[in-house]
């Protein structure tokens, strides 16, 4: 049953065809199976209790929480050794909101350590595998959440997105990943990676479910000064599939096959498939335009992201000292103890980010790197906002095709000639734009995704376009079938 959508499950619960207990039990059984298969969880809450079924669509239904959300009395590690035994005493606001809706968390999903990776290979509990093919990556950092939703453990799992951490795993796992406008969902209780980019969001198997869950998660929060009041926005109610007359654009430089002289067959198919999706939208009355953007501006996106995210991360994770929480380090003075805690606790990838971040923030480098990156971010965002004056949304393919093999995925912040195709989702974080990925094809028996990004506060519009496109394709509610 847990492979069904929220509305259907709610209907069955209301009609007493199933119970909340049944769903939770099934979800827990599937959790254990998927843990075996894909290593998708840090914690499975075997003692999860059912909740009364109410008018709320989410009541009584199980879901998963990425392990970088603070959950009261439940281990929250962010998949890091520095927090391997950390049990918080408060719930993240988004989790508290879902609790109030009657939703039942059944597991904490594994992730790239502190959200700082895109492969699912850096969790302290080991590599997270793609349920479509365990030899392949889920991407990251919301890897466990994506794997679990794709495997039908429950209808939805929480994710967080700093560069593409919801939207890329969603593409590789054949599901929907939605990152709403920055500040729509409170970040209180989300373990910080890069505060100006971090966004809470959700992974589901349909656009409808994404709208329902974000409706429940969002809201002005006195504990997050960057949150805003969206009480007049009803995402689920606003889904009507009417997109006739909408104007979309894609960035020519990113999609043009001519720019990829070494394109693989997968990439060629992926781009062809992208155009097929555009054709569907055209048939719905959507006007689509290829827009050219200065390649110099596009080229800097990955480095701007690295500069800003590493700089903020260096500072944000300075609270990890092992003094107040986390395993106490050894040493004959407090600085030696902090150093020992951090040396042993963090994986090499994270340390590398800290070194980069520190270097960028150093007095003598700040102007060149940090301030430079901030300026570039502003230019990119201004360009996008200018385009959003004319167009309703940006549409682009996600990544270069389906999930890569784990053997080949080295998360080392490297870039190559397809970097732009891999990294363009970061634009969504630069501007705090609402951005959604939905599955739009199957290549070599593996799913691929397409992304729609709109202007800030235009979440309803973005969801609606995705909703209309989804309805004309066959990838809604897709679940990996166990052989």
């Amino acid at each position, binding site marked *: 049953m847990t492979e069904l959508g929220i509305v259907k499950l709610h209907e069955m619960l209301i009609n007493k065809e199933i119970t909340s207990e049944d769903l939770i039990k099934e979800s827990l059984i599937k959790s254990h199976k998927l843990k075996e298969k894909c290593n998708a969880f840090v914690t499975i809450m075997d003692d999860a209790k059912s909740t009364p079924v109410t008018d709320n669509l989410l009541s009584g239904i199980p879901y998963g929480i990425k392990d970088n959300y603070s959950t009261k009395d439940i281990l929250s590690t962010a998949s890091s050794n520095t927090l391997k035994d*950390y049990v918080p005493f408060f719930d993240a606001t988004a989790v508290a909101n879902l609790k109030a809706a009657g939703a039942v968390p059944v597991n904490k999903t594994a992730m790239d350590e502190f959200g700082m990776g895109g492969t699912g290979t850096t969790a302290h509990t080991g590599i997270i595998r793609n349920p479509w093919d365990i030899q392949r990556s889920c991407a990251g950092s919301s890897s466990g959440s994506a794997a679990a939703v794709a495997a039908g453990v429950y209808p939805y799992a929480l994710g967080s997105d700093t560069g593409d951490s919801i939207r890329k795993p969603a593409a590789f796992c054949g599901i929907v990943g939605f990152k709403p406008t920055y500040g729509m969902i409170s970040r209180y209780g989300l373990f910080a990676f890069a505060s100006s980019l971090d966004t809470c969001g959700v992974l589901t198997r349909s656009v409808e479910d994404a709208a329902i869950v974000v409706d429940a998660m969002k809201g002005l929060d006195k504990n997050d000064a960057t949150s805003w009041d969206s009480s007049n926005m009803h995402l689920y109610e606003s889904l009507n599939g009417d997109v006739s007359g909408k104007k979309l654009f894609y960035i020519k430089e990113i999609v043009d096959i001519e720019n990829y002289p070494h394109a693989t067959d997968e990439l060629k198919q992926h781009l062809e498939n992208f155009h097929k999706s555009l054709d569907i939208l055209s048939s719905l009355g959507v006007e689509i335009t290829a827009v050219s953007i200065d390649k110099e501006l596009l080229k800097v996106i990955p480095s701007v992201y690295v500069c800003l995210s590493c700089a903020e991360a260096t*500072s944000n994770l300075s*609270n990890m000292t092992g003094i107040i929480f986390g395993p106490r380090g050894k040493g004959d003075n407090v600085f030696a103890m902090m150093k020992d805690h951090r040396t042993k606790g963090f994986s090499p990838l994270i340390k590398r980010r800290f070194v980069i971040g520190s270097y960028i923030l150093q007095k003598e480098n700040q102007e060149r790197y940090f301030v430079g990156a901030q300026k570039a971010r502003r230019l990119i965002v201004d360009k996008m906002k200018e385009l959003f004056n004319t167009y309703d949304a940006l549409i682009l393919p996600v990544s270069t095709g389906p999930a890569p093999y784990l053997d080949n995925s080295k998360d080392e912040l490297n870039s190559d000639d397809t970097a732009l195709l891999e990294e363009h989702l970061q634009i969504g974080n630069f501007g705090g734009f609402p951005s959604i990925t939905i599955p739009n094809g199957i290549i070599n028996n593996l799913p691929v995704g397409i992304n729609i990004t709109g202007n800030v506060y235009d979440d309803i519009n973005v969801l609606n376009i995705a909703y209309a496109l989804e309805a004309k394709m066959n990838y809604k509610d897709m679940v990996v079938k166990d052989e």
Partner: protein
Amino acid sequence: MNKQKVVIGLEMHCEMTSNSKVFSSARNSYNELANDNVAPLDMAFPGTLPTLNKECVRKAILISLALKCQVPKYFYFDRKNYYYPDLPKGYQITQMHDPIGVNGYVIIDTNGYEKKVLIHDIHLEEDSASLDHYSDASLIDYNRCGVPLLELVTEPCLNSADEAVAFLEEMRRIYQYLDVSEADTKKGQIRCDVNVSIMDEDSHTLGTKVEIKNVNSFANVREAINYEIKRQMELKENGRYNEVEQETRRFDEESGTTIRMRGKVDAIDYKYFVEPNLPKYKITDEYLNSIKKDIPLLPRDRKLKYINDYNLTNQEASLIIKDKEYADYFEECINTGIDVKSAYNWLIGNITFYLKDNDITLKEFFIIPTYLKQIIDAINNNTISSKQAKEIFNESLSTNKEPKFFISNNTQVSNKDELETIIDNILSNNPKQIEDYKNGKTNLFDYFVGQVMKETKGKANPVMTKEILKDKLDC
């Protein structure tokens, strides 16, 4: 050696009063119980975020305006990154790029002359936790962590320890007058960093600056400066000025000396950047004007008013303005109609003695100016003597009843006819005692006085009573 000039700059940290801390909901209050005023953010638990206490912003702008500083168009914060066990987040939220006030000044009176002290900037930040070091361990108290702190930086424009201390005292008063801080050094609410250098008086080149960190009383500021001047002077006199290094030192209270902590090369790079969790917000002219209206007359202006309008001497006026509660009490006295001289004398005399004896403040003092007026009016009407006034003052305080109740009871019966009638009555009721008195028991005289007092509830004029009694008994 040429005549030397001393150049001093101060950094004054002052804890602000507020209900809650500057970025968390924990209480901001002096608390003996360690780790009691603590919210999750104060210990930097993962996922916690700062939120801004608007009251602190208002107070920061208030002080900035009172110091004639320029206030920026936007209010925002920066992170100052460094590792230290008293700083759980690993960074302090402060203002580096756009402090809440720049380029201000304050005028101080010192040793008979006035001086304009230039303010480089004043900014709002959070305090760190406090550490207690023991031989085998250190304890951390997070009560202080996140307490709003104002850091004020002067230009290097002070030229003696006296000037530095006079400035700090004036600033303390200003904080208190604006109700921005209790500014109590005993509670550790004020801490200073002092920059000291010496230079040839006729030179235009500043000498090598030495910073003395974390000096926590004004007496220590004076001592630290004087020690440092002496140290630098001696080195210069002996031709060893090159040994004066740009460095950070600390003041050692026990020896009264300064001790080296670190040199310039070890200076920390704080990697400042804009705090992303607190959005910039615009300081509108409307908001500024609403705050401007709240600036009261500052201590020095009040002093001038007392001298010019009330004819107090400089010394008298200085005594009154030393403490805002005093100045407020004094002005309230004048407003209720008490004359300046009486208000001054009572405040500096009886009231001050009483406060000291009972270790209370004017806020806790029962006799408010309107009550005091009851006593002073009674003196002026000759209803009571000044000796009685003192008694009424004490009686009022010991019973917590308005002085007027004791004044009406105290109104003496001084009418001779009335007294004679009362005394005649008493005598006719005590024939036995009269006989005994006449037979030599002269101490019974006091018995008769007592009876009169009893009859009049103590209001009989004692001198007249005795005269009449003597007349009647000895005839």
